[in-house]
């Protein structure tokens, strides 16, 4: 009798779980982050020599189309807004399932987060678009509080209330429509203010324990999987970050520690906050807001990064390869979209 009940309970849970898994994609928000991750992780057959990982700073800071057009570098920007470094680690593992030994560029801004877990909505934007696998289970287990985990295994449980606002787009969503941008998305505003936080300090502050452990995991992964790793910090005015709850009080000092950790482990670290003049950035004009580059700033920064990558890594120029013929069209489309947006 008990066995019968347990067997039937399991069957019931499997049926419900299957329905939830089947309908979760329908209920998940069809934002660009979804489109780019589905394409970049699973659907596109392109291979990338460089993968760009991290938070919104990276998402709106480095444009793969510029890297392509100027240097023939094939790359994809997997960064999503508010992505904590632990999520970046698991997302990188997902990327590496398909792309072997690319140059991995990781935005380290979120090393400053002191809260144990990232903002649920931001974490969702990344993890909800990762297919079910052991890696996803580990990501949910480590990046999400216990009482929210079920909502990540079955995103429909999180978005069920959308039953009343589902549109045609939810049923016919085609992630390929956003692929041309290669994951890049920047704003078109001008911040209008100068960076008031920058100080060429030698002071060093500790990296919060959890984010440090994930930085070490990323470094360890680069050695295990044998891929070159470049840590990068994009231009930002830290004034607000330094005051924020759940964040370190002195970002500048923390990044000095990051430089030490990178050096100790033989990993390159490029702090672009220290190189704004070299890049030719005008903070007030090239930033969308205090923490994010706008499309004009992103072009300059991407160009600078492309040059740096070409000089420091062995990267092929794919521009004449037929396999990448579509990339030139994508570049034109991204330029047109930027012009329209600007």
């Amino acid at each position, binding site marked *: 009798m*008990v066995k019968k009940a347990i067997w039937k309970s399991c069957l019931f849970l499997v049926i419900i779980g299957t329905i939830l898994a089947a309908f979760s994609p329908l209920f998940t928000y069809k934002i660009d982050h979804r489109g780019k991750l589905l394409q970049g992780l699973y659907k596109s057959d392109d291979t990338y020599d460089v993968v760009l990982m991290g938070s919104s700073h990276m998402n709106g800071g480095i444009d793969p189309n510029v890297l392509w057009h100027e240097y023939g570098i094939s790359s994809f920007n997997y960064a999503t807004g508010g992505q904590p470094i632990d999520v970046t680690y698991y997302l990188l593992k997902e990327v590496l399932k398909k792309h072997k030994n690319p140059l991995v560029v990781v935005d380290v801004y979120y090393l400053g987060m002191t809260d144990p877990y990232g903002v649920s909505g931001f974490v969702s934007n990344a993890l909800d678009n990762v297919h079910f696998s052991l890696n996803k289970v580990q990501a949910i287990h480590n990046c999400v509080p216990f009482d929210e985990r079920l909502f990540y295994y079955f995103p429909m449980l*999180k978005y*069920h209330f959308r039953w009343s606002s589902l549109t045609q787009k939810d049923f016919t969503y085609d992630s390929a429509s956003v692929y041309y941008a290669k994951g890049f998305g920047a704003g078109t505003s001008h911040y209008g203010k100068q960076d008031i936080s920058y100080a060429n300090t030698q002071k060093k502050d500790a990296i919060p324990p959890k984010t440090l452990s994930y930085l070490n995991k990323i470094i360890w992964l680069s050695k295990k999987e044998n891929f070159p790793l470049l840590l990068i910090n994009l231009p930002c005015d830290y004034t607000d970050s330094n005051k924020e709850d759940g964040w370190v009080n002195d970002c500048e000092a923390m990044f000095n520690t990051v430089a030490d950790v990178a050096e100790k482990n033989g990993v390159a670290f490029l702090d672009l906050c220290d190189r704004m003049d070299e890049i030719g950035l005008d903070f007030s004009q090239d930033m969308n807001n205090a923490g994010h580059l706008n499309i004009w700033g992103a072009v300059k920064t991407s160009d600078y990064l492309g040059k740096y990558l070409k000089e420091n890594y062995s990267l092929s120029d794919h521009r004449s390869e037929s396999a990448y013929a579509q990339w030139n069209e994508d570049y034109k489309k991204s330029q047109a979209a930027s012009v329209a947006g600007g």
Partner: protein
Amino acid sequence: MSFTSIQFLIFFPAVTILYFVIPQKARWAWLLAASYYFFMSWNPYYAILLAVSTVVTWTSGLLIGREDLRKRPNTVRRKKIWVALSVFVNIGILVVFKYLDFFCGLYAEILHIFGISAQAVQFDLLLPVGISFYTFQALSYTVDVYRGDIKPEKNLGKYALFVSFFPQLVAGPIEKSKDLLPQFDEVHTFDYDRARKGLLLMLWGYFQKTAVADRLATLVNTVYNSPQKYSGLEVAVATVFFAFQIYCDFAGYSNIAIGAAQVMGFRLTKNFDKPYFSKSIKEFWRRWHITLGAWFRDYLYIPLGGNRCSKWRHCLNLMIVFAVCGLWHGAAMTFVIWGLLHGVYQVIGLLTRPAKQRAEQKLGIRENSFPVRLYRAAATFVLVDFAWIFFRANSLWDATVLIGNLFRFNPAALWNGSLFSLGLAAPDFWAALLGIAAVTAADLLSRRRDLRQSLLNRGPVCRWAVYIAGTMVILIFGIYGPLQSPSQFIYFQF
């Protein structure tokens, strides 16, 4: 740990499976440990008060039992002393934690009326979850032992389980010791059909709570939290919605509690029996929160003399019982007025009954005819719903504003879309109405047959279709999850 939390969805199967796996002798101890864990998940300190209430009432039971055995002179007097002490300690705890601020405020108000300026002292003690429920259940044990309805329980652990049994600990049903205590000595084997029935009842409870009550709450909260902004139709809709919100909230909780207990083999008392089909206020109280009504009847109304006294005394007894009943629900004048209103309804019903019966005879109205029953059910609903205004309003002033605004007729709200701007957009509004219709239909159908049994008699395809569709309806239309704001069960605050 709320019934609607993920923790409970793990806790309950784990507790149940282990309950049937471990030896009979240890089962009560396992349930006791699980119940205290369940309770302490809100706040570990709550357990201290629960334990105090348990030890005091258990000790009082033993002392009363000892007096019966010794048969010394003044036995009755001594027994009464133990009852009084138990009542004093338990009601004392309840007063301190629930009513102290209210009584201090009332005292300051009274002084103010007499022109004496006094600042009300505020203690702001945290109200332990379910204190009114377990205190009443524990107290009933003392009185039952005193009356000889039950022998004193010698095993403190089993008695502690009676007070803390997790399915009904925080919001009832308030069980009588003679009904529940002996069940902890029963040998429960796993019964597949019983478990199915219990789980079905839980499923229905979850539907009532998450898909109906919490959706209605959105609109109710919008109107009741800004009473001056809304009039006529909006207040009327919110008030009708609240009638179903509180019903589905509390009946939903009770069904989950009764269903969970049933899965393990325990029989808890039915707490709701189609209350909105009542044809009088008196009948409403036999169908609404049945176990609380029975508690007040057995331990307050009858000791006061009940109806075996003069008519005026009978009326006074009714008013006392309903004033206390109102106060039991919350330390605020709104609850007292709500209780008194029900008392007034009953008193008017009592005093006008002879005249009404004579009029009906003269006019040849058949009491059991459908139009008369329909009229009475509708009239009773209107009276009950009017009283709910006081129950739900955030203050007496808000209640008066709402009642005033109720009569500011604004039929345009029917077509200008303003009903859809009260927190529920059109699809959600219609879903709310559908939820009310579903609950009403289920109540209607269950008057003639046992719906659960009817379903279980069907073939497996039909049964499984209902299980899966029912679960999916809750999962899609329920209000839960990190992106929505589910409400706490209303009765947890009492």
